[in-house]
């Protein structure tokens, strides 16, 4: 069936009237500028409570130590808050920063913004990497970062208009806050005409972010083919919740028409050369490798199922017979093909797929026709398999509403799966949920839970608090065994797990739980190296991988880049290189790109040094907030091994064999006994892994960066040293 990609419900008929109702609370003029060698050397700071708007210089030391993006965000947040600040205190800052390489149009995946704030889920800093045009357009108006503090009294928007040289805080009482509407309406309000719409980008969060801690931010990019504001999400950690708590309805940037050299790079030719090489690589190899251009990350669904890694029924199992109903063939057929689906110019990976002409089935937009962005793998796995829902259209429905409501689809998927397992085990029942029957496999029940969360009513008020708080609430109410709830509630540090089963990969258990911000696959994804390719058999090998990859991947967030073009396409000869998992040719591309834009030559060792400084800074930041030690790095047992008899039995042969290898003879033992023995063994293995990783990272046995490590990385600022000394 062919879908019309121009057909959708319009929401902008009243845009002009709604704009007329705006009341300007504060307005300043500014001199737009363009970066030189990737940096503007100035940032923008707004306080919504004090109604102040000011520019500040960015120093050479900031650029040397923190690079940009996530680094700038963390540094500004460090200065904004104190050790006792809570996420909803006015001083909590929300920082959006592209990096020095962001906005180049030649290298795929170069349009990213990094959002940093104090998370309402984890009470430590969260960083979230997001596409869309906002960051690059902000940068080409003249700012390397935007920091927002304070709280407005009523709903406001912040407008940064480069062509008009105007920055304003405007009260905006009438616009719908839900993201697909807000992005469309504000784009129409602040673009001069249709041709100007790609020069506007809107950041928004929907009504769900007002009631739940899992609120995300949507960053728009205008799709000229569809004539629609498409959405990309800064998903993790509740950034949208902070946004709405500040009474922000939207951030609007109106920039200048984009050109290919607005970073004023040191050597455009070097960038163009590696960019064209990557475009050609994607042209030649994507169809043979990951099919990102046709399927996006959804291509992973059946691969994860085949390797027993797809989370099914709250991570109990790793595969399901119904997976073909939501696999990549289904999505390829449903996504509109042949449209440049890059979330920034020059992204030939084009993974930002869209399912057009979808008729909404439930909730406030029932009957409307819309384009659904995605689903991506995480969303398909989390909302789908993990909740036992193997139905394409229910997945499109839940994907649509997660974005519209401003809810992180990863956290929502994991918390919904947790609720469904609690239902399965009798921890929840109709009386406790107010009548909501949360059985695995029910698309309508999942949607009802989401609507309740978004509207802040009924059981949704509890579920919207996230898994960590639900565990406490259920245990406090005496609904279930506290240990079982701890075991099956898939969160670390308060952040819900992303969608991979880590039980059979010790390295990935660390990849999730030894993260700075909580279990998110963008730090380390080592399952294939560990389980399939057997490249890291010893503790030292795993520790080396858990040193290198999280640090390497941090670099993307410092520079405003996407991780996907690094290894979701690989050079044809990559497998024959000495370290294929690192994709060495692409690492060299990044060094070339950095030098081409900033003029500073780096090699792969310097790249790691740059990231390591910021990574350790973030660890010390966690310590400053009372976290960041060994006790905070332990995963729930469901992430480590089989919690229940059924889980053990689903892989009995494997588990029995592992017990034998560990010197324990399982013969004659009951399954329950074997579950206990396996647990003892695996938890001991994890402790050993922590020892090895901390040592390799230059941390103490309690997970605290040593003073020597800080000195080596040039991060021995007195205020950091003071925090570390308190924790030694």
């Amino acid at each position, binding site marked *: 069936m062919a879908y019309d990609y121009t057909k959708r419900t319009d929401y902008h008929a009243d845009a002009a009237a709604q704009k007329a109702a705006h009341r300007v609370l504060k307005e300043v003029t500014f001199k737009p500028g363009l970066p030189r060698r990737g940096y503007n050397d100035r940032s923008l700071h707004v306080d919504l409570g004090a109604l102040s708007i000011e520019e500040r210089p960015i120093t050479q030391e900031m650029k040397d130590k923190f690079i940009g993006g996530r680094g700038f965000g963390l540094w500004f947040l460090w200065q904004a808050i104190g050790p006792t600040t809570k996420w909803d205190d006015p001083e909590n800052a929300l920082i959006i920063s592209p990096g020095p390489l962001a906005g180049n*149009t*030649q290298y795929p995946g170069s349009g990213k913004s990094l959002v940093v704030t104090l998370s309402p889920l984890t009470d430590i800093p969260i960083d979230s990497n997001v596409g869309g045009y906002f960051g690059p357009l902000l940068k080409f108006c003249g700012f390397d970062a935007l920091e927002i503090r304070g709280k407005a009294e009523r709903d406001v928007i912040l407008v940064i208009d480069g062509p008009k040289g105007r920055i304003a805080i405007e009260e905006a009482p009438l616009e719908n806050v839900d993201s697909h509407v807000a992005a469309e309406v504000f784009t129409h309000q602040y673009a001069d005409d249709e041709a100007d719409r*790609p020069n506007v980008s809107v950041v928004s969060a929907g009504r769900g972010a007002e009631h739940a801690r899992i609120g995300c931010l949507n960053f728009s990019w205008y799709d*000229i083919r569809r004539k629609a504001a498409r959405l990309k999400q800064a998903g993790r950690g509740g950034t949208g919740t902070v946004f709405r708590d500040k009474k922000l309805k939207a951030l609007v940037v109106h920039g200048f028409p*984009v*050109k*290919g*050299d607005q970073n004023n790079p040191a050597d*455009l*030719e070097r960038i*163009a050369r590696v*960019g*064209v*090489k*990557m*475009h*050609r*690589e*994607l*042209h030649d190899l994507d169809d043979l490798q990951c099919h990102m251009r046709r399927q996006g990350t959804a291509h992973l669904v059946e691969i994860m199922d085949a390797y027993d890694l797809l989370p099914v029924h709250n991570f109990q199992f790793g595969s399901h017979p119904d997976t073909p109903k939501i696999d990549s063939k289904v999505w390829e057929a449903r996504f509109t093909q*042949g*449209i*440049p689906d*890059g979330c920034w*110019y*020059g992204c*030939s990976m084009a993974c930002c797929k869209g399912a057009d002409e979808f008729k909404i089935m439930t909730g406030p937009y029932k009957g409307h026709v819309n384009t659904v962005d995605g689903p991506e793998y995480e969303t398909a796995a989390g909302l789908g398999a993990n909740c036992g829902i193997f139905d394409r259209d229910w997945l499109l429905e839940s994907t649509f509403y997660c974005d519209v409501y401003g809810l992180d689809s990863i956290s929502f998927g994991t918390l919904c799966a947790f609720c469904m397992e609690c239902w399965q085990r009798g921890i929840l029942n109709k009386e406790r949920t107010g009548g909501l029957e949360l059985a695995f496999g029910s698309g309508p029940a999942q949607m009802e839970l989401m609507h309740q969360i978004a509207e802040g009513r009924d059981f949704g008020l509890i579920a919207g608090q996230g898994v960590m708080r639900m565990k406490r609430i259920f245990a406090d109410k005496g609904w279930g065994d506290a240990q079982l709830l701890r075991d099956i509630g898939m969160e670390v540090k308060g952040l819900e797990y992303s969608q991979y089963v880590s039980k059979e990969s010790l390295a990935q258990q660390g990849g999730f739980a030894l993260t700075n911000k909580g279990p998110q696959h963008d730090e380390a994804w080592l399952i294939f190296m560990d389980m399939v390719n057997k490249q890291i058999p010893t503790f030292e090998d795993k520790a080396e991988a858990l040193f290198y990859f999280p640090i390497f991947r941090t670099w993307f967030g410092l520079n405003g880049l996407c991780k996907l073009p690094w290894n979701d396409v690989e050079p044809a000869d990559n497998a024959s290189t000495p370290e294929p998992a690192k994709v060495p040719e692409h690492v060299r591309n990044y060094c070339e790109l950095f030098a081409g834009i900033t003029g500073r030559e780096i090699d792969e060792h310097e790249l790691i040094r740059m990231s390591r400084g910021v990574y350790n800074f973030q660890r010390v930041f966690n310590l400053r907030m009372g976290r960041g030690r060994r006790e905070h790095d332990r995963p729930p047992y469901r992430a480590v091994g089989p919690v229940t008899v059924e889980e053990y039995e689903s892989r009995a042969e494997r588990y029995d064999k592992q017990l034998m290898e560990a010197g324990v003879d399982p013969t004659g033992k009951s399954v329950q006994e074997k579950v206990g023995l396996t647990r003892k063994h695996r938890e001991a293995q994890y402790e050993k892994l922590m020892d090895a990783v901390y040592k390799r990272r230059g941390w103490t046995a309690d997970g605290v960066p040593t003073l020597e490590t800080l000195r080596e990385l040039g991060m021995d600022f007195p205020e950091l040293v003071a925090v570390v000394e308190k924790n030694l």
Partner: protein
Amino acid sequence: MKVLVGDPGKCTLKHACEAACARVLHKKDDRPHSALRVDPVEGRPRFHVCNQCGECIAICPTGALVRAKSGVVLLKKDKCVACYMCVGFCPSLSMFRAEDALPPFKCISCGNCVKACPEGALALVEQPHDGLPS
């Protein structure tokens, strides 16, 4: 539409076509500025020149590549953001870029190279463009 076609049997690799093209497009007469490249492959000429297939039109994120009424694919420079995806994705490797010019460039079937070829190895051939991407 008119499509430029080369005859390897007649070409003697004098590259006069490339110089003529560079003069028209960039007021230079060097090969890197030409939208037509003729390379010797095992002693025989191989032509890299746009066949106006239009696959680049769907690749372009800004709508800068369009099929004109004549059928020829043209680049609107004011819309181009120099991402070079069209360069990387051209099936016949005949979308080009030069170091000193931001937008890429391609054959516009102007015929100057045809006139410049001393051997008569190039011709503009009329072909239908119905059904091709636009």
